[in-house]
């Protein structure tokens, strides 16, 4: 008798269970886990219950009364006592067969969706736990019932079938159609992914799942992901989110991105969302929406930093610390006069290497390269490459600073958003 037994879910489902007196108890239909169970100070998915079918009735018992053993490579489940499992507790977990097996899950390391072919579990004295999911060919063959014979056959040729596992800590279930609300609220693991990866995953999900995953993200993350999504997915989400939620997410995004998305939405919906947004955010977006599609104004970012030429380096740095701007706002810093007209630019580098009491007028570069908001988009790339700039200020006819065009936006435009195709 070893102190631990590893086994596969597919091997246990459908097996017959007998009690100590060799009485037939039922056929294993499914195992139920508590994903957030704490064992020895670590979160480990504990098998808490078992679903058995006897005749026409299906009942759920606590797994405490069951023992898994392996004799000569054959897995069997024995029943010591039948303790009915509290139905209330079913809200805290998930059935492996129903909710995980054959479903898509997120592989957090590979940052992609994979399909679960089988689940590997282990029985130790402290309980039975889910160890890993099998996403390889071997798991597939095991499910079809071809694994053992095929393995024996291939051994003759010294060929092994690749097994592919992902440990339980590195997965996140996303298909909530079989879950309850409580569980779907707790997928903290997804938050660790880069927004771009998360966006790719969300695009690949079915529509209902896509919505529930997106709704479970916190607003900051949701806004970052929304920015990265393809237009179709953006529209689908905004159409199906509540107006309040949509407005909350869009408020956290740069105004130019929001304008791009709303331009694709139906007028009525866009208007509803704009009304729901905070006034200053929505005003900025409305202004941008005025610009024709192929003009500089339609892609410029309206979040920029401008200062007076009499400010000192120290004052500017203090303001930056206070405002904590996004990285791209720091690509280029602008100097305007009292009428908000653009007169010069200066860079973060110049700022950092200067004495604290120096005035901005000493480090700024007057009459900077700039674009007009009604210029065509295709003229920007030339500018950016010619002058090696990360961000170019945009002014209107009166030379009043309106925003800036950041290299990221242009690159996106030049390459054309990467199309997923099937």
């Amino acid at each position, binding site marked *: 008798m070893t102190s631990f037994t590893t086994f596969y879910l597919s091997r246990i489902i459908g097996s017959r269970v007998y009690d100590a007196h060799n009485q037939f108890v039922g056929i294993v239909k499914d195992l139920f886990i508590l994903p957030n169970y704490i064992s020895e100070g670590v979160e480990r998915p504990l098998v808490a219950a078992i679903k058995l079918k006897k005749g026409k009735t299906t009942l759920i018992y606590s797994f405490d009364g069951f023992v898994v053993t392996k004799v000569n490579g054959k897995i069997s489940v024995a029943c010591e006592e039948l303790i009915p499992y509290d139905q209330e507790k079913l809200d805290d977990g998930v059935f492996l067969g129903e909710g995980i097996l*054959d*479903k*898509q899950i997120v592989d957090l390391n590979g940052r*992609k969706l*994979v*399909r*679960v*072919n089988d689940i590997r579990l282990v029985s130790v004295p402290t309980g039975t736990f889910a160890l890993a999911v099998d*996403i390889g060919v071997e798991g*597939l063959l095991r*499910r*079809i019932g071809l694994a053992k014979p095929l393995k024996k056959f291939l051994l003759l040729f010294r060929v092994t079938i690749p097994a592919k596992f992902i440990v339980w800590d590195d997965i996140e279930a996303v*298909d909530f*159609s079989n879950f309850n609300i409580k569980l779907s609220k707790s997928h903290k693991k997804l938050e660790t992914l880069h927004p771009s990866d998360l966006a790719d995953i969300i695009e690949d*999900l*079915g*529509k*209902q799942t*896509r919505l529930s995953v997106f709704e479970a993200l916190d607003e900051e993350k949701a806004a970052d992901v929304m920015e990265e999504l*393809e*237009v*179709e*997915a953006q*529209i*689908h989400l905004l*159409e199906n989110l509540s107006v309040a939620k949509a407005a909350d997410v869009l408020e956290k995004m740069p105004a130019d991105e929001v304008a791009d998305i709303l*331009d694709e939405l139906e*007028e009525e919906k*866009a208007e509803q969302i704009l009304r729901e947004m905070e006034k200053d955010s929505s005003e900025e977006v*409305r202004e941008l*929406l*005025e610009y024709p599609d192929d003009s500089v104004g339609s892609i410029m970012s309206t979040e920029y930093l401008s200062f007076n030429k009499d400010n000192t380096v120290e004052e500017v740095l203090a303001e930056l610390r206070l405002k904590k701007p996004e990285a791209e706002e720091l690509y280029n810093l602008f100097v305007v006069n009292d009428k908000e007209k653009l007169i010069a630019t200066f860079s973060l580098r110049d700022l950092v290497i200067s004495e604290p009491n120096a005035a901005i007028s000493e480090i700024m570069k007057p009459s900077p390269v700039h674009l007009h908001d009604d210029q065509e988009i295709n003229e920007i790339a030339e500018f950016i490459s010619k002058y090696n700039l990360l961000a170019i200020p945009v002014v209107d006819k009166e030379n009043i600073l309106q925003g800036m065009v950041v290299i990221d936006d242009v690159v996106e435009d030049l390459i054309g958003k*990467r*199309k*997923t*195709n*099937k």
Partner: protein
Amino acid sequence: MFKNKKLWSRIGLFLAILGPGIITGSVDNDAGGITTYAVSGAVYGYNMIWTLIPSFIVLIIIQEMNARMGIVTGKGLADLIRENAGVKITFLIFIGLLIADIGNTTTEFAGVAGSLEVFGVSKYISVPLVGALVWILVVKGTYQLAERIFLIFSVSLLTYVVSAIMGHPHWGEIGTAIVHPQVEINSKSLAMMIGIVGTTIAPWMQFYMQSSVIEKGLEIKNFKYSMIDIVVGCIATVVVAFFIIVACASTLHEKGIQINEAKDAALALKPLAGEFASQVFAFGLFVASIFSATILPLATAFYVCEAFGFEAGIDKKWEEAPEFYVLYTIILVLSVLIILWPNAPLIAISLWSQVINGLLLPVVLVSMMLLVNNKKIMGEYVNKPLQNVIGWGAVTVLIGLTVTLLVMPLFGK
């Protein structure tokens, strides 16, 4: 604040949605389909045209369900089957699909070889060349490029109209034959009817249709446009089929010429309707074959990977989705090799792939009907009672036809 773009946006929206139905409808008329239509025209004259009417109805119903499922769930049919029917059934369906589609792709390359032989190009040149072209288009190109080329292809299938008119058909007779067909019911004519219905509804197409609406990112509120797309696609399918039958009926049938494959039809047209008509017919066959030879292996590789959880899609790099590309390449290479194999049993291959198709179709259709009626999956968009009556009716008829076709050889033809 918004530009006034009501009418334009409507037209734009329709054009954006256009595609899946029309392309699926065109892929329908592949080399195997053209052969079936040509043979039926040559053997039965105008008397088999009426079967296009039930084909048309069934096609619309099935594609509507596919489109609705794809749009509502955002999931492919392979995904849905895997998640709801379990591994074993999925495995059976997809092994069958794989084998049938290798056979079908072979038939497409036979079409390429045959059509170019009319223009005097040897199959040892045309088939490897086209195979390489198709492979490059998929592996190095983008789906959008492919889809545009396909749409242009779809239009060129209308060349069959030219072929048909040059044969000077008797329109009055056609009308009479549709309303009051003169067909003796025997096992041969029954097989022909089943062939015509069966060639318009192939199992892999259900998967293709569903994926393309997802690919387009369509929304349920624009479903009326998708519906137009489907209907236009189905009409195109049936119209092309109609003209192929007419072209062969008004020439070959009149003269009592018997044919075995579509290439023979093109060759036989030469003395009857002129060299141009013959070349136009061959050109149509070429376009249809190359079109389906591109989509079929691609689609098959994609669905097999989707069902078994491998990465797939031509936007992925080779390293990202090795299983997908290897599978795609194997299907293509195998088909090309079979065609170039001296004395390969082509007729048997195409017959057997039809048989496997016939066995698969009921399984796929029943899975579809169960999925589209599942509230958990479709929510409020499950089938309405009338849709179910028509849907199950169509499925029953198709299964009946297929079973008849499969058991017929047992009782001797």
